[in-house]
C-alpha cells in the first residue's frame, strides 16, 4: 500500500460533491423554478431580414437614372397555418388550388420555423386586395423589398441588371442568403458591394406554434438595414440617350471618353434593350426572349466584341514608325493604287502620290503604312525579324491593346495582338518576315481590338501620348474617388512630339478636301478623325470611325462601330460627328439636321 492511498477518499468526495451540485442544479431548473418550464412555451426566436434599398445611380450631371420601387413577396409561416378559405385565396392570387397546395407543401419542406417565400413580387393590385383580406389567412405574410426602377431607360449594358442569388454565390459569399438579390452584370455587379447596402435583422420571439411574441431581448440585437451607397456615373445621360437613338437601327457600338480623365461619356452597344425589361417577375421571361434574339441584344459589344481594327490602326503603326526613326514626318512613299511587292499586293484607292506622313493619314493610304510597317519589322537595329516584331508588339500593348483596359464593367475582352510565337507556330520560326504579316500595317489580319480599346486610342492621340484607364463610375457616396480608380497617366512608348502629325492627318481627313471623312466636318469645331473598315467575312464590312474634338483642346474622344456599314465615312463617321456636335454644342446645327435624319432613318439591322 502506498502512502497516498488515503487520497482516494478525497477524490471520491470531490466527484460526489460535483455530482451533488449537478443534481441540485437539475432540481432547481426542473422542479423548483417553474420559469424555465413556462418559457419553453414561448421561447423561440425568428429572424426577419430587413432588406435595404440599393444605391441610386446618377449621371455625371446629377441626373437620376436608376432608383427603386417597393415590391411585396407573399410568405408562408408553416407553423402558423390554420384552416382558411383556399378558394378565396386562389381567386385573389389568380392561381389554381393545386398550385396553392404544392406551394404550401414546398414551403413546409424548406424550413418549418421560418417564413418562406411562396409567391414573389405580387402585382400592386394583388397586394392591395390581399392586404385587406390578410386577417382571413393566418400564416400568410408579406415581406417588403425593393426592385430597380429606371427613371431614364438608357444604358442597359453599362448598368447591368439585378438577379436572385443562386446556391453557388451563397456558398462563395456568406453575405448572401436564399432569396437575396445581387448585381449580376454591369455596374450593378462591379459595384455590388457599395450598391447592396447592409441587410438589417429583427429578432422576434415566437412560441411553439410560431406565433410572434414580440421583440427578442427588447430588440437589443436588432440591426437596421443600411441603404446602399449612391453612385454617380461619368456618363452624360443626354449624350447616352442621343447615341442610343442614333444607333437604334444599327448593330454596333459607341464609346465616348473624356480624354483628360478617362471618364466614359457614352457607352452604347446596339442593339440594346430597355433595362426595365429585366426587373422583377418579368425578368426571367424577357431574359429568355432577349437571349433568343439573333441580333444578340444582351451581348455587350463595346467591351466584348473583337473586330479587326482596320485603318484606324494605321495611326498606331505610323506613330511607332516615327518613334523608331524608320520614317520621318517628311518621308514620302509612292502609291500606285496600292502596295505591290514580291508575293504581296494590297490595293489602295485613287489619290495623289507620293504622299508624306500627314497626307497618308488624311488619305488612309494603304501603301504608305505597308512601307512603314515593313521598315519597322525590317529595322536593322534589331538582329532578327522576330526581335523587331516583339518590339512592335511592345509598342502596341503600351497603347492598351491586347489586354483588357481595366474598365469597371465586368466581362471585358482583351482583344488579340499576336505574339511572335503565334507566327512561329503558324509559319515556322525564321520563315516569316515583314511581308508575311504585312496586313498588320493596316489593321487587318489577326489583330483584334474592342470598340473600347479603339476609343481609348482616340483618347491617347488626343492626349498626345497617354491615357487614363477608362471608367464609368465618377464617385460613390462617402468614398474617396482616389481609392476608387487608378487615375495614373499610362504613357505609351511613343514620344508625345510625334502625335501632332497624326492629329494633323486626322484633322485633314475630316476637314480638308481629299479627306476620307469630309462629310462629317463641323462648322466651328475641328474634329480629328480616322475612318476604318473592319473586314467582315460574313457580309458587308463594318464601318469604323475614331475621333476626338476639338483638336486644340480635346473634350471628347470617340469610337463608333456600325456593323455592315461598309465604309467608315458612310455611317460611323456621321454618327460620331453628330455625337461630338451634340456634346460640345448641345445641339445639332440646322445645316446638319439632314445627316441626323439620314442616320435615324437608315437601317442596317436586317443585313445579317
Amino acid at each position, binding site marked *: 500500500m*502506498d*502512502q*497516498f*492511498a488515503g*487520497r*482516494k477518499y478525497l*477524490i*471520491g468526495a470531490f*466527484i*460526489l460533491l*460535483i*455530482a451533488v*451540485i*449537478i*443534481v441540485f*442544479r*437539475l*432540481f432547481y*431548473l*426542473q*422542479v423548483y*423554478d417553474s*420559469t*424555465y*418550464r413556462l*418559457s*419553453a412555451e414561448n*421561447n*423561440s*426566436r425568428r429572424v426577419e431580414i430587413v432588406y435595404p434599398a440599393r444605391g441610386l445611380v446618377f449621371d455625371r450631371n446629377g441626373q437620376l437614372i436608376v432608383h427603386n420601387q417597393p415590391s411585396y413577396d407573399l410568405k408562408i409561416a408553416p407553423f402558423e397555418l390554420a384552416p382558411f378559405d383556399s378558394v378565396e385565396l386562389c381567386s385573389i392570387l389568380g392561381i389554381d388550388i393545386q398550385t396553392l397546395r404544392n406551394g404550401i407543401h414546398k414551403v413546409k*419542406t424548406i424550413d*418549418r*420555423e421560418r417564413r418562406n417565400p411562396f409567391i414573389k413580387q405580387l402585382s400592386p393590385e394583388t397586394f392591395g386586395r390581399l392586404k385587406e383580406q390578410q386577417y382571413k389567412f393566418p400564416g400568410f405574410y408579406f415581406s417588403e423589398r425593393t426592385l430597380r426602377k429606371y427613371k431614364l431607360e438608357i444604358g442597359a449594358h453599362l448598368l447591368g441588371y439585378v438577379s436572385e442569388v443562386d446556391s453557388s454565390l451563397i456558398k462563395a459569399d456568406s453575405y448572401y442568403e436564399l432569396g437575396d438579390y445581387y448585381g449580376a452584370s454591369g455596374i450593378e455587379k462591379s459595384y455590388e458591394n457599395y450598391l447592396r447596402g447592409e441587410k438589417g435583422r429583427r*429578432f422576434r420571439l415566437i412560441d*411553439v406554434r410560431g406565433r410572434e411574441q414580440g421583440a*427578442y*431581448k427588447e430588440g*437589443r*440585437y436588432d440591426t437596421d438595414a443600411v441603404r446602399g451607397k449612391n453612385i454617380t456615373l461619368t456618363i452624360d445621360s443626354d449624350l447616352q440617350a442621343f447615341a442610343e437613338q442614333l444607333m437604334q437601327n444599327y448593330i454596333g457600338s459607341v464609346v465616348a471618353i473624356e480624354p483628360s480623365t478617362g471618364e466614359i461619356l457614352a457607352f452604347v452597344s446596339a442593339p440594346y434593350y430597355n433595362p426595365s425589361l429585366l426587373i422583377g417577375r418579368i425578368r426571367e421571361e424577357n431574359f429568355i426572349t432577349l437571349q433568343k434574339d439573333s441580333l444578340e441584344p444582351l451581348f455587350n459589344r463595346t467591351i466584348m466584341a473583337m473586330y479587326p481594327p482596320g485603318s484606324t490602326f494605321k495611326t498606331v503603326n505610323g506613330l511607332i514608325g516615327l518613334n523608331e526613326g524608320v520614317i520621318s514626318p517628311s518621308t514620302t512613299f509612292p502609291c500606285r493604287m496600292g502596295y505591290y511587292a514580291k508575293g504581296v499586293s494590297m490595293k489602295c484607292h485613287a489619290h495623289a502620290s507620293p504622299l508624306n506622313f500627314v497626307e497618308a493619314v488624311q488619305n488612309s493610304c494603304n501603301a504608305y503604312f505597308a512601307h512603314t510597317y515593313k521598315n519597322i519589322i525590317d529595322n536593322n537595329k534589331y538582329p532578327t525579324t522576330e526581335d523587331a516584331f516583339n518590339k512592335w508588339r511592345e509598342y502596341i500593348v503600351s497603347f492598351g491593346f491586347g489586354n483588357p483596359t481595366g474598365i469597371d464593367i465586368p466581362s471585358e475582352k482583351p482583344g488579340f495582338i499576336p505574339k511572335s510565337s503565334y507566327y512561329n507556330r503558324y509559319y515556322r520560326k525564321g520563315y516569316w518576315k515583314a511581308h508575311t504579316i504585312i496586313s498588320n500595317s493596316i489593321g487587318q489580319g489577326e489583330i483584334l481590338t474592342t470598340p473600347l480599346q479603339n476609343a481609348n486610342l482616340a483618347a491617347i492621340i488626343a492626349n498626345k501620348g497617354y491615357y487614363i484607364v477608362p471608367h464609368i463610375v465618377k464617385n460613390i457616396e462617402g468614398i474617396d474617388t482616389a481609392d476608387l480608380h487608378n487615375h495614373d497617366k499610362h504613357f505609351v512608348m511613343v514620344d508625345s512630339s510625334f502625335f501632332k502629325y497624326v492629329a494633323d492627318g486626322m484633322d485633314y481627313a475630316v476637314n480638308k478636301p481629299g479627306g476620307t471623312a469630309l462629310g462629317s466636318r463641323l462648322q466651328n469645331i475641328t474634329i480629328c478623325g480616322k475612318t476604318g473598315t473592319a473586314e467582315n467575312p460574313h457580309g458587308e464590312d463594318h464601318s469604323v470611325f475614331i475621333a476626338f474634338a476639338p483638336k486644340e483642346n480635346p473634350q471628347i474622344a470617340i469610337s463608333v462601330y456600325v456593323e455592315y456599314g461598309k465604309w467608315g465615312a458612310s455611317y460611323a463617321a456621321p454618327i460620331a460627328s453628330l455625337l461630338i456636335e451634340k456634346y460640345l454644342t448641345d445641339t445639332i446645327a440646322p445645316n446638319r439636321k439632314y445627316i441626323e435624319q439620314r442616320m435615324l432613318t437608315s437601317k442596317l439591322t436586317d443585313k445579317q
Partner: protein
Amino acid sequence: MRRRLNLLAEADWLAIFLFLVLIVFGWLNIYSVNYNESSTTFFTTSNRPAMQLAWIGISLVLALLIFVTDSRFFSFTAYPLYAFSLAVLLLVIIAGKEVNGSKSWIMIGPVGLQPAEFAKVTTILALARFLSGYNVKANSRKNIFFSFLIIALPPIFIMLQPDFGSTIVYGSLLIVLYREGLSGWLLLLILFMAGIFLASLVFSKFVVLLLLVLVSLLIYGVNSKNKKNTGYAIVILLAALVPSLLLQYLDFIKADSFIVLLIAVILATTTYIILALSKKLKGVVLMVVFLYAFIGFVYSVDFVFHNILQKHQRERVEIMLGLKSDPWGYEYNVNQSKIAIGSGGFTGRGFLQGPQTKLKYVPEQSTDFIFCTIGEEWGFLGSLAFVAVFIGLIIRLIIIAERQRSKFSRIYGYGVVSILFFHFAVNISMTLALFPVIGIPLPFISYGGSSLMSFTVMLFIMLKLDATRKAYLI
C-alpha cells in the same frame, strides 16, 4: 478457450453493465433528437441514429478485440502509441479537414475521425507507463516535470487545431498526479494560476494586479508569525499607492491605473525588501518573487491573447467567457439549453416528445448538447437516474483502480476516471449554465464515432487490465 472463459468470469460485469446501459440510453436520445413523426422527408439528410448504431457496433467489436489482447501489450506499447498519436495530431494540423473553423478532422473515405479523441487514451497509457516506473513518485521535481510534459504535449498540438475544449480536458489528469503524490499545495497553485488566467481575460489588468497583491498579502499574513510585519507591508503599500492614485486622479500622472498601481507595487516591494533584509525577515523575498512571477504571467496571458491568437480564436474565447455576446450563439444557446432542460419538469415530457429539442432550438443537440434531450424528455427523475448511473460507473472505476496490484493499471484507471469525470461534469455543467460552453462530448451518449470509440477503448483497456490483475504483475 479456457483462458477466455476465465477472462469473462474475471471481467467486472457491473462496470460493463453500466456501460451498456449508457450506450443504449445514449442511442435512444440520439434517435429521439432526429426523430420526426409527421414526415420522412425532413430529416433524410441526417441518418445519425443509423450511423451511431454502426459506431456502437464497431465500438463493441473494439472492446472484444481489447479483451483478447494480451494485457501486457498496453504497457509495452504505451510510448510508441503515444508518439504515434502525437504524429497524427501534427498531421491533422497540416492536412486536416476544417469544420467550424477548427482543423480537427481526418477523413477516411466519407468518415471523419478526430484524432484528438484517441490521443486521450494514449496519453493516459504513457502517463501510467512513466509513473509506474520503479520508485517513481509524482513528488520529485524531475518526475513532476516529465509527467507534465507527457500531459501537455497533446493539448499543445490540439490547441493549434484549435480545439479549446479538447485541450483543457487534459487538465483533469492532475487528479491522477494528485493520487500519485503531487503536493496538494502545488495543485492549489496550479488551480490558482488557472483562475488568474481566466481572471486576466475577464477583468482588467488593474483588477487582476490588485487581486494578486491582496492574495500575496493574505498568504504572507497567514504564513508570517509576526502579524506586525504584515501590517508594515500594508502600510508601505498604501503609502506608495494612495499618493500615486491621487496624483493620477488630479491629472499629474498621465497613465492608466494599472501602470500607476504597478509603479506603486514596485516601490512598495523594493522598500519592503530592503527593510525586511535589514531586519532579517524570512519569506519576504519568496513572496515578492511569487508576486512578480504572477504579474509576468498575467502579462504573458495578455500578450498571447492579443498578439498570438488569431481573431476568430480570440472571439471564440471571448464568447466562451461571456465577454462578447452574440445573439446567434453563446447566450442564446445556453438559455435555450436551460429552457429545454427546465421544461422537462419532474417526470419529463416522455420519449420522443420533447418539442424544444425537436424544433431545433437547441444547437448541437445530438452531440455536445445531448443532455438537453435527456433533461427535457426524461425530466428530473430521468436525469437523476442518468447522473446516478454515470457517477456509479465512475465510483466503480475508482474501486477497480484501487484494487489493482500493478501500479500501471491503477494509474491508468485513474486516468480513465479523470477523463470520464471531467467530460461528464463539464458537459452537463455547460448545458446547465454552470460552466462556460466548451465543445466537449458527453461520454457514451453524444453522437460521434471518434468519441464513442475512444471512450469505449479507454474503458475496456482498463477492464481488461482489471480482468487479468491476478494473472500478471506488470
